[in-house]
Every structure is written in structure tokens, then in C-alpha cells.
């Protein structure tokens, strides 16, 4: 059975022709980086890499979480709320100084994993469309976050905030955190769960007929997404030295944008995490680039929209031709 699954996944992977898309994205990224380097010659210095990776970490990890959900054929509109929740739980536990940062992290991640798994369980058992479930969940977790942290506050140890934002003996801690998170995903992907994740997203009935416990896969997938979302929230808390109960909201749509830009299909089963990584980096760098050019922020929003639509259109066209 494992073989059959593998074949199915390989076939759908080939159909997506992920690598060709990724070459295009890589090319675009190189272009953006070259222009960026010209406007900001310090781009490749450790200090700038630290700053930029601290800036991009929440979006990258949120997009990883969103990608996992999208691979099952779902979508997570509660991601921003869960991100804020993780951030809130983390900062109230680090605030009084009695609890170690690591313990606070573990508690925050446990909460976000449970929140994610709860979303997954509703999708899997109630059979409700993910877009409805997670929309409702976004209000639920948003409310819970406000109870945990009614207004911006909390405190993260100053030494950690400094080390994270300014470098720790020259090491870009956020970049390392991103790398570790991506390795974690790599490991997960090679497990049987990783395989069934793509199978459920690609063809749920087929996967079920092949003996995959599709419900369990969905719950684990949403839970795993909760883990990455929680990490994004913790990253944001360390970057900002505090918690803010409403700061996560924009990450819902931005994470979807990054995943879509990276070639993750809305219909599930198609796409690769490195595409999402490229998508998130592109979105982040492009936004920064526009800040350097000094054009009005309203035009920047238009331009971002255009880039996104163009990227999706090109991908759709490329895939459609292939099918024909």
C-alpha cells in the first residue's frame, strides 16, 4: 500500500511540475535581491541578515503552518488569532520572571497545537468546510487571547530580545530558528504522516480507500500547523519584547499570500514547502524594497496585489497548458 501511495503522490507532484515554478520564483528572488543590494549595500552583512530574518521569521513560519493546512485541501483563517494566542500565553508566562523562557515556550506551543488540533477535529468530524470552521475559530481564539492578555503588555527578558534582534556573538538567531523549523518539516515530510498528508489533500476518497485514517491525518495536520503558528507567535514576541493581543490578524492573509505565491494549490495535495519559503521571502523583501523606493504606500499595496495576481495567473496558465 505504501508503494501505491508513493506512486500516487509522485504522480501528483510531477503534475504540479513544482520545480519549474520554483525556478521562476528563484529567478524573481535573485532579481529582487540584486535590486535590494543596490539600494541597501549592507544587505549581506550579519547585522542586516539578523534584522531581516527577525522580521521575516513570523511570516515564514506562519506560511509554513498555512501550507500544511492547505496541503490537506483546507485553509486556516484562524491562523492570525492563534498566532496572537501563542504570543499572549508566552509573554504572560515570561513576564513575572519566575518561569524559564523554555517552559513558557513549551506551554505556549502546547496551547497553539491544541487550538490547531481542535480546528482539525471540527473539520474532520463535523465535516464542515475548513473556511467556515476556521473563520468561527478566529473569533473564538481572538476572544480567548483577549482574556489571556487584555491589552498589549507582558515582558520578554531584555537580554533575549537584544540577542535575537541584534545578533548573538554574530549569529543570526532568527535565521537559525527558521532553519531548524524547516528541518523539522523536512523530517515530518519523510514520515508516513507526511506522505498521507499529500495523499489526503490530493484525493481524500482515494486515500481513505487505501486505508489512510483521513480524519487523524487532518487533526495532526492542523495541530502541526498550530505548532508552527505558535513558533511564529513566540518569534514575534521575542522580536517585539512583548505581547499584543491583536497583532496577529494580518498574518492570516499574508500567510495565504505567501503560500499561494509559493505554488501551494488551494485544492490540496500540490505544492512544496520550499516554494512557500520562497514566497514568504519574496513578499517580505518586496515590501521592504518598496519602502526603500519611497513611492506612496497606497501604490505599494496595488503593486503587491499585482505581483500576487500575476504569480498565480502565470502558475495557473503553466499548469493548464501542461494538462492540455
Amino acid at each position: 500500500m505504501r508503494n501505491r501511495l508513493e506512486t500516487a503522490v509522485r504522480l501528483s507532484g510531477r503534475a504540479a511540475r513544482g520545480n519549474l515554478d520554483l525556478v521562476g520564483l528563484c529567478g524573481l528572488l535573485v532579481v529582487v535581491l540584486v535590486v535590494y543590494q543596490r539600494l541597501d549595500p549592507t544587505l549581506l552583512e550579519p547585522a542586516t541578515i539578523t534584522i531581516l530574518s527577525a522580521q521575516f521569521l513570523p511570516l515564514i513560519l506562519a506560511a509554513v503552518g498555512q501550507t500544511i493546512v492547505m496541503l490537506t485541501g483546507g485553509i486556516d483563517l484562524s491562523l492570525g488569532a492563534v498566532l496572537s494566542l501563542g504570543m499572549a500565553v508566552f509573554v504572560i508566562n515570561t513576564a513575572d520572571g519566575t518561569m524559564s523562557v523554555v517552559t513558557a515556550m513549551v506551554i505556549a506551543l502546547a496551547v497553539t497545537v491544541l487550538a490547531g488540533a481542535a480546528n482539525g477535529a471540527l473539520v474532520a468530524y463535523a465535516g464542515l468546510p475548513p473556511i467556515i470552521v476556521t473563520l468561527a475559530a478566529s473569533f473564538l481564539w481572538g476572544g480567548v487571547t483577549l482574556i489571556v492578555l487584555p491589552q498589549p503588555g507582558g515582558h520578554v527578558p531584555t537580554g533575549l530580545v537584544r540577542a535575537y534582534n541584534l545578533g548573538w556573538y554574530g549569529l543570526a538567531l532568527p535565521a537559525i530558528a527558521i532553519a531548524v523549523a524547516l528541518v523539522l518539516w523536512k523530517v515530518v515530510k519523510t514520515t508516513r504522516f507526511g506522505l498521507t498528508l499529500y495523499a489526503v489533500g490530493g484525493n481524500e476518497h482515494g486515500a481513505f480507500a487505501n486505508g489512510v485514517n483521513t480524519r487523524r491525518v487532518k487533526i495532526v495536520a492542523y495541530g502541526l500547523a498550530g505548532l508552527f503558528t505558535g513558533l511564529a507567535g513566540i518569534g514575534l514576541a521575542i522580536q517585539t519584547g512583548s505581547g499584543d493581543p491583536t497583532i496577529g490578524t494580518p498574518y492570516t492573509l499574508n500567510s495565504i499570500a505567501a503560500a499561494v505565491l509559493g505554488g501551494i494549490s488551494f485544492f490540496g495535495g500540490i505544492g512544496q514547502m520550499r516554494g512557500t519559503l520562497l514566497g514568504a521571502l519574496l513578499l517580505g523583501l518586496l515590501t521592504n524594497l518598496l519602502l526603500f523606493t519611497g513611492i506612496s504606500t497606497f501604490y505599494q499595496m496595488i503593486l503587491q496585489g499585482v505581483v500576487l495576481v500575476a504569480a498565480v495567473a502565470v502558475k495557473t496558465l503553466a499548469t493548464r497548458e501542461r494538462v492540455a
Partner: protein
Amino acid sequence: MTGTTRRALIAAAALGALLTTGACNVDSGGTTPSGAASSDPSGGTAGTAKALKVGWSTIYLAPSWMQQTLKMLEEDVARLKGEGKVASYETFNANGDTSQQIAQIQAMIQQKYDVILVDAGSSTALNPVLEQAVAQGITVANFDSLVTSDKVIRVGTDQVEWGKMTAQWLADKLGGKGEIIAMNGPAGVAVSEERWKGAEEVFKKYPDIKISANVHSEYNLAPAAQAFASAYSAHPNITGVFSQGGALSAAALQTLVKQDKKLVPITGENYNGFLKMWADKRKEGFSSLSTAQPNYLSVIALEAAVAKIGGTAVPMDITVPLPKITDDNLDQYAKQDQPDDSYPIQPIPQSEIDKLIGK
């Protein structure tokens, strides 16, 4: 179709993107020198101080209050450019995204701005990046929505006092007893929480004033009107409304007028829609006390930053007094010819600004 077509398509897309970014690049290249050139002639008349590169990062730009603030700020920038004190000015809009605002401030640090003005999206999340800017020698002046860091100049009004002052007026108006609905801003927003904190302190002293509903709403007419209408239908016997925002007050008053109910006192803000309705209903006995978050906070922040660089001992915390709009001076504020969604304010005399910034 062949693979080559596909590849060509993708290459074309990449090229398109390249051209777009290239175009932006050219665009900025064109504007910067001309901006610098226009300030050059006047720059010659300045004393020893160099003209400053100023930027404003704001969490929102679209609301009319922000547009008015921008206009006032730009007028002052033009004046300071004329005096050779400011070389260039740029506005950055984070559009509600605090992470984006952090990125903007980082970009401003990178581009060696001399003055960073900030209307903050979060009272805590910007602290590290603003302190980083200060450490790099940049003068940071924060106004309107304030951060908690004490390393930056903060120009604001006392939001707790806002709540206290208006609540006290209502309590006096009601003679210390009655039933009210409280109209507050969104939960979890610092401004809203602080105004309510001040109001609550006052109401605690009056056990005979019953707060029958505490409503949270966006500071927007439509959602506020809905929220008030449902609270009012549950509590039709109220004798007053504590409202902490102009649009919220307008929503409450509008509902009472529409339903042809008794016009109870409602506290408010200098939202023109509310002021106009108040002026209209004053002869029917409607009364209010309103205050304002003055748009000139931005001007004071800019002048404070410029003065600080010029060597003035500017206080780090500048609390601008809250204006009082009463039944008596309402006519100076309510502007019949201006849209509802504007915030009329009386200009602040330069002498008052100078006093506030320690000149």
C-alpha cells in the same frame, strides 16, 4: 503545448517583475534629487544646523483623522523647509499591520533618517525597534497612539483623564444617580481601555449610577449604531450615555433621534457629525461635553524633535491639554459646511507649542 512556451511565459513574467521594480527604482531616483534641490536655496539661509530628513510611520493613513493630521503635518513641514530646518519628508503607512510598521522603522534607520515620527500600532511591540533607532542617534517622537518606552519623546493627551473628565460631567449632569449605557472602543485597544479606566474610576464614586450595558464597538458609525441600538432596546430607560468616541456618540444620538426618544445627555468627541447633530438638537435640550484628540499633536511632535536636535531641553513626556467643547463654545467647533467625518479643532497658538516643548 511545449515546454518552451511555458518556460518563455515564466521568463516573461520574471522580466515583467524586473521591469516593475526597475521602474520604481527610476521613479525614486527622479524624486529624491528634485526634492533635495527644492529645499537647497532656502537651506542656504539656515544657520549652522543641517536640514533634517524626516519620516512619519503611521499605523493607519486612511481614516479622516489621519488625513487631517497628515495635512497639518505637511503644512508645518513646508514651513520648516522654508526655514531650512527640514530637507525632506516622507509618510509611511503600515495599514494596520504592526509587523509592517516595524519593518518601516527599520528601513528608516537603514536610510539614516534624522527624525522618525511614529503613530504606533501597538503600545509595546515597537519599543525594541524605536530604542534601536534612538541608539543610532535618531530622534524619535511618538504622538497620538503612544508606546510605553521612555527613551522616545511622547506627545499625547491623557486618555485616562479623557474618560475621567467626560464621565465626571455626566455624573454631575445626572445628579449622581441614573442608568447609563457605556459605549467603548474595541476591546484590547489601549486607548479604549484607558479612557474607560478613567471613566470607571469616576462612576465607582456614584453607586446610584447603574451601568446597565458596556458596549464595545469599532470607532465607526455603522457598527456603533447597531451596537447601541441593541443595547438600547434592552435598556430603554437609560438617563445618559457615556461615550468615549465621537462616532460612538453620533451613533447613540442618531438612534435616539430616529426613534423619537428622550434626548439624554451623551458625552462625546469633536467628530463633526456629532457636533452638527448636537448643535441642531441643543434647543431641544440636548447637552454634551466633548473633547478631542487634537490633530496638532503631530505638529508638536515634529517641532519637539527639531527643537531637541537644535539643542533645546525638550521634555520626554509632553501631555497636551484636552480641549473642552461645551454647550457654550460648540459653535466655534461644529462646522456645518464640512463632512460628518471630519474633526474640527481650534488651532493651537505657537506660543503654547513652544511652552509645551520647553523652548
